[in-house]
Structure formats: C-alpha cells, structure tokens
C-alpha cells in the first residue's frame, strides 16, 4: 500500500516521543548550564603547569627544558628560561621558567606537550568555560594563570595523578636512597680516614719517620 512506509516511520517516531516520558535513556539532552553532565575522567582541553606544595612559584615542577616548546605542533608555547636555579622536588638545583605562556587560541589540545615532558610538569586541564571578550591578552595564559596545584590534578584526573605520584615518589625515594647511601659511604669513608689518621698518628708517635699518607 502506498504510504505504508511513511506510516511505519511515523509509528517509530511516535514510539520515541512517547517513550521519552517513561524511559530515562530516551531523554538524551540536558539543559546546560543549569544541568551538567558528569565529567568524563580522561577529558582534556588545555594544558596547565603542576606545582607541588603551597607556593605556585616555588613548587613549579617545570625545569624549563623547552622540549614541549619544540614539540608542540602549532608552536603555541613560549618559554623564557631563568638565569638562576632553584631546588626542585628532590632538592636538585634546576632552572625554572622565567616566563611560560600558552596561547590557547592556537593550542589544539593535542596533549603532545604532556607526552614529551620528562618531568611530569605539564598536564591537561578540564576547564572549558574560558570564553572572554578580550581578543588578545585574554587567551594568552601566563605562568600564573597556568600554575595549578597537584591537588587539582589529583581531583580532575585521579587515575593518572595516582600513577604520576607513585612514579615521582619512587624516583624521589631512589634519589634519597642514593643520597643516603652516598652520605653513609662518605661518613664511613671519613670515619675510616679518621681512624686511619689516628692509627697513623699513633704509629707516627712510635715511629717519627713513618710513611706520610
């Protein structure tokens, strides 16, 4: 019968329309911004710089190695390296970025900076309500706007942050263990040297022509 297909289609739409009153999963939209969907954990949009501790300036993990600047596909990172050094999370003196800008009107949220950074210093944020009426300055994020705490990172990407924290803790442990071992070795060496000197002095006392160390 002519029109049968159309009727069949209409029945389908009617089913969907009526179904939306009874079944939750037929209602597929939410009324943003009053309603919001749950965030998806791996979501990324723009990068931010991670800092440890309280002070965003002192705790910045970035050592200004400029790898991300070089690898960023659209070249939207701009870094000026510091001339002096400050201690990093394991206490080793490192350079820090005197200036670190990301132009998020150019950034394509590709996450390559995160992948290439050897210091876990740059991660992806989930903040998306960034529109501004400032055409030029408003979309260039500087070091202060980019710096966000590790707690923020743990909150937005819990799984990834846990992995990163574990890796960093392990590294720190290794460094500390090495430092401790070095310190112990140094102490043992100096103790041994002192003992040797004492022994030397003792022998020197009995034998004034003793071999000089």
């Amino acid at each position, binding site marked *: 019968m002519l029109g049968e*297909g159309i009727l*069949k*289609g209409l029945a389908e739409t009617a089913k969907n329309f009526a179904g939306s009153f009874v079944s939750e999963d037929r209602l597929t939209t939410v009324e943003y911004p009053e309603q919001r969907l749950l965030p998806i954990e*791996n979501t990324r949009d723009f990068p931010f710089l991670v800092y440890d501790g309280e002070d965003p300036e002192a705790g910045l993990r970035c050592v200004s190695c400029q790898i991300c600047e070089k*690898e960023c*596909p659209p070249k939207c990172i701009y870094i000026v390296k510091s001339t002096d050094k400050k201690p990093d999370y394991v206490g080793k003196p490192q350079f820090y970025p005197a200036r670190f800008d990301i132009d998020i009107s150019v950034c394509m949220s*590709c996450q*390559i900076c995160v992948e290439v950074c050897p210091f876990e210093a740059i991660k992806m944020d989930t903040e998306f309500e960034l529109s501004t009426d400032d055409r030029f300055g408003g979309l260039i994020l500087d070091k202060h706007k980019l710096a966000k705490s590790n707690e923020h990172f743990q909150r937005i990407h819990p799984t990834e942050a846990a992995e990163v924290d574990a890796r960093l803790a392990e590294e720190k442990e290794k460094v500390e263990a090495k430092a401790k071992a070095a310190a112990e070795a140094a102490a043992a060496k100096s103790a041994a040297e002192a003992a040797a000197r004492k022994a030397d002095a003792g022998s020197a006392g009995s034998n004034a022509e003793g071999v000089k160390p």
Partner: protein
Amino acid sequence: MSDLAIRSYLPPVIEVESQDELLEVAMGPHHPSTHGVFRMDVALDGERVVRLKPVFGYLHRNHEKIAEKTTYLASMPYTDRLDYFCSMTNNWAYALAVEKLAGIEVPERAEYLRVITAELTRIQNHASAIGFLLQEMGASGTPLMYAFREREKILDLFESLSGSRMMCNYMRFGGCRVDLPADWLDAAKLVVAGLPRFIDEIEALLTSNEILMARSQGVGILKPDLAVNAGVTGVMLRATGVNYDLRKVDHYGIYDRFSFRVPLGEHGDIYDRYMLRVLEMRESVKILEQAIPQLPDGPILDPKSKPRGFRPKPGEAYGRIEAPKGELGFYLISDGTGNPYRYRVRPPSLINLTILEDMCLGQNVADVVLIFGSVDIVLGEVDR
C-alpha cells in the same frame, strides 16, 4: 584504454537549444547543503542541470606542507582535522604508513583496539551520513537527531578513552597512546549491544519510506566503469557493484580474523548508497561483537617506539586503510631526518567528489543537493 571505455565515461550529452537560455547559479560556498564551504557552479536549463563545476579549496589549510616542516609525531593531531568525523581512522592510516616506513611492529592488543575504534568510527560516520542525507531530503531533524543520539554514545566512549570526542589523537607509531580505562570495555559492550536496535529503528523509519524511495531511486546513477576509472572508493564504489573493500583486499591489521561480509549495490544510485551504509553498519556491529570479547592482554605500544627523536631510515611507504569514506592513504618519503621529505594524503572525499558532474547531468537542480549529500564528504578532507 579502448575507445569504448573512454566514451563510456564521458558525460552524457545534453541537447540545449540555445546557450543564452541557460541560468548560471553558484550554489555555495555558504549553501546549507554543502556541509561547509564548497561551491558548485551550476548551469541550468529550466530545472535540469546542464553543466556543473565543483570549486574546492575554501578550507585549504596547507596540511601537507605543514607536515613536511614538522616532526612525524606532530602531524598526528593534524590528521584528526582532515575528516573530523573519523579521527580514529585517520590516525590509523597515518600510523600505518609510518609503521611501514620504519618497520615497526604493532602489539596484538593495540591491533584489536584499532579495529574496535575504527569500526565504532565507521558506525557513527555512516549513521550521520544517513542523517545528513535525509536532512537534505527535507526530513528536517528526526533521522539526523536519531543518528546523533547514537553517535553521542560512541563519542563518549572515545572521550573516556582518548580524552577528546572528535580530535582523538589516539594512535601512535607502533600501537596506541593509552590503554583502556577501567570500565571502558563494559561501557563499549553496552553501546554495541544497543546498536542493532538503533539500526532497526533507522530502517523502520526510512528503508521503506516512499518519499525516500521516490527521491533517491534511479537518481544520481554512477556507472561501475566510470567509478573505477575515476578512482572512486568506499561506499560510492561498492554501490555500483564493484567488490572492493581494502579490509578484504589488503588484509591490513587483523581483519582476516573476523568474519564479515562486504555488502554490494546494484544500481549505483542514491538509494543503494543509503542501503549500503545501513548494511555496513550491521557488518561493523558483527566485527565489534567478535573483537571485543577476543581482546587479549598485553602491551599497547611497541617498546622500541619513542615519542621524541623519531628518525626513520630513508625510503618511502604508502599506507592505506578502508576509512568510512573510502580508501584513505598516506604516502611518505623519508630522507632520514626528523621530518618527512614528502607527505601526501590520498583523500577519499575529494576523489569521490570529482565525478559529481557526471552524476548530476540531466538531473533536477533539487537532486543535486541529494547527490552531493550521498557522496558523504567532509570538507576538511577535501581541501586539507
């Protein structure tokens, strides 16, 4: 080529009484049906199309030259922006070309992940293509919204896997970037289990719809020999009855392990293309149903591949896959440095669009919109 073959792919001759009577219309670049910026200069004799000249290039972004000036890895996120409906398959084609160039092996688990993401991509692409086609037919909204409802579920899966809905940037040379999040596979199973119902729904809505049949059957016919000569691939080619699917022809990835069929058309008209997309979605669901339970454990990235300082040996390679729109290929020449010496994309959208005039000649001007929609293009890929 024989004289016969040449004549068969020349456009049919339309007798026009007088050239002065023709009306020249520029459809586009901002025509609602063009899905972007694309112009068709159409010459009309009354309602009939006498001449049609496609004008490309409004969205040209210099993709190939940029890729030659940057590292191999840095081109990966740019490939997302070619056909922005199908970033997973774009990634795969590029990764395949680089893997061929540098001789990198892909671990088992990564191969499965690639198949799973690529087939999900195919489903959402075909669903939206059907939606857009119906939109152009005047069914304003309903089929498209149904398609987008389903696409949204797949995009959510992509987001929780790769971090982004459309610009996934997921594949790497020698595998994939990240492993599946904890409950991803269960969510994927749920989505895949819901897909047959969705495809049934689309079919109930459209397949036997008299308006769709009247508007699409026998319209925009493409002949198999012209399709082959013009290099048309994908659904467009298979709708003419030519059995050519790279998943079966090239045996790339691990497609040999799955049983699926390649649906073929008969008439090469718009209706066949619609029907083929529906059937291909069903086959993709079949592949997914086989691949998801088989997913093995193991690494997802070749341990030898590294993100920085990638320098393949001098040489050249062409990697191609069956993308949802047709044969997507990347041709790379390496001169041993960190940048490709030559980087070339074989875009299925552009090549499928080159025969637009041949399909439109003699048709009504209202059908041009439909024929154009049935090719299923994305202008990011046409213009690159």
